[in-house]
């Protein structure tokens, strides 16, 4: 009865309409997203997302993993901001067991988070430009991203799924070349951001394709639960780093970037300006990393007390929440990951109804969906 495929019996009022599939294997869907679109000519009348093509049953799997093991599965969920996901989980365990993290670990965690945010936005820029048909920004963006992954690889050992943040602090200490490489990266990035401005932002074709497309009003954004750059592009104050500050975000100066237009160009400008704000945070912290321990002393087997705990962090896509119900054992009783992409995707139909397919690609690009984050 409740299956996803519908049998269409009466077609009298849908004469002339065409139902097409976009995905699951499609170069512009950033993963395996299947959209069933009902078209009238080239105008979209209805969009239905079909999910589940990468549903790896992570929530069920985490019920049999210990509190130290389940953190690394979240790296694979939203793999472009893996440090920030790990941070959310580590916060949850630290909150429930009341572990105090040393100051050096906090500062390094923030540095890694901001570097990850820049890397994620770079990849978004490259991939979105490629969807709209521009191939050059892809290679430019990956050039900067490779510099960041090299820095990560020296310290953490891996390029993409870095298992570096543990409950209590960090896994290893920093590599001795870290500060010098980050400073070199900051210098190059500031130089190259003018290149992006010239190539993409000030391009007339790009602006015409993005302005006025995919409008989301402020009330709709709150009702659909859109957070991150999607919410901020519509004027919603939803930056967790400002509202519920964690780690050392209350001691550094940065602006929350807001735009009120609510269209694709506004979301694009929010992300580009966020990269600049992240550079500002990195510049303030890179010379002032305090000395000390990088990990607090914790027991080998973690057993939080009975209760429910919810923590939230600001990933590159929005608010990532971890909700753990624990019964006092070595494995969690129930884990729920509140992923930002799930709520952002539910607003897609509202945004793209009535527009053309080319506009749909521009809207989907600015939503910055990572499908394993949605399907979990």
């Amino acid at each position, binding site marked *: 009865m409740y299956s996803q495929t519908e049998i269409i019996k009466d077609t009298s009022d849908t004469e002339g309409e065409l139902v097409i599939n976009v995905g699951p294997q499609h170069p512009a869907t950033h993963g395996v997203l299947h959209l069933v679109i009902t078209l009238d000519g080239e105008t979209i009348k209805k969009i239905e997302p079909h999910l589940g093509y990468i549903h790896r049953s992570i929530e069920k799997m985490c019920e049999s993993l210990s509190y130290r093991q389940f953190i690394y599965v979240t790296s694979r969920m939203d793999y472009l901001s893996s440090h920030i996901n790990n941070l959310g989980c580590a916060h949850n365990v630290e909150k429930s067991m009341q572990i105090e993290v040393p100051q050096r670990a906090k500062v390094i965690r923030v540095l890694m988070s901001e570097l990850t945010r820049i890397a994620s936005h770079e990849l978004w820029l490259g991939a979105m430009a490629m969807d709209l048909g521009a191939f050059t920004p892809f290679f430019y963006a990956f050039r900067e991203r490779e510099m960041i992954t090299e820095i990560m690889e020296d310290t953490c050992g891996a390029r993409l799924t870095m298992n570096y943040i543990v409950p209590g602090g960090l896994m290893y200490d920093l590599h001795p070349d870290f500060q010098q490489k980050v400073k070199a990266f900051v210098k190059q990035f500031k130089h190259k951001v003018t290149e992006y401005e010239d190539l993409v932002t000030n391009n007339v074709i790009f602006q015409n394709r993005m302005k006025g497309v995919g409008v989301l009003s402020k009330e709709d954004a709150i009702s659909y639960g859109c957070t991150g750059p999607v919410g901020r592009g519509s004027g919603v104050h939803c930056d967790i780093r400002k509202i519920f500050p964690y780690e050392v975000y209350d001691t550094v100066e940065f602006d929350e970037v807001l735009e009120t237009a609510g269209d694709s160009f506004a979301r694009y400008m929010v992300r580009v300006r966020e990269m600049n704000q992240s550079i500002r945070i990195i510049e303030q912290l890179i010379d002032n990393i305090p000395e000390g321990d990088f990990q607090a002393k914790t027991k080998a087997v973690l057993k939080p007390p009975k209760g429910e705990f919810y923590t939230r962090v600001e990933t590159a896509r929005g608010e990532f929440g971890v909700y753990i119900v624990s019964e006092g054992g070595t494995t969690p009783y129930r884990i729920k990951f509140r992923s930002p992409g799930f709520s952002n995707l539910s607003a897609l139909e*509202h945004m793209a109804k009535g527009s053309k397919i080319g506009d749909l690609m521009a809207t989907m690009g600015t939503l910055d969906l990572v499908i394993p984050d949605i399907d979990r």
Partner: protein
Amino acid sequence: MANEEIKEYISSIQPTATFDETGEWLNILTEPSSWKSFAKELRHSKFDFDYLFCLTCIDWKTHLTMVYHLSSTTYRNTIVVKANLDRASPEIETVSDIWRTAEFHEREVFELFGVVFINHPDLRKLILTDDFEGYPLRKDFEDPINMIKL
């Protein structure tokens, strides 16, 4: 204290609700039969709870519990509303016309736990295959073919 005001307000509109303040936020336990009117009141009250950020379900082996995390974008208060459901035939009213984000969240809870949401506009499977049998996230779900136990 903001929690006191919220408690007073809720006791006036829903006398049967019980409170639990052991956690970080105010937890409210309510009846599933009166959930829809309670939700409407909360949404349009002076506290303006317009942001539903987490909707999930927990399987205690004797009953199921629906958990709703609500927050206000203007005053930054957060409350948690819970409702206990019968395990044999769990049913509750939908809130997808009040908070639009609940549409997808309720579809997910429906297919993973088996909770039927009354008056939901489009209650179908979202992330599992069409011919999947059973409710995977329940504690008594057994699948000897696919699940390899450690």
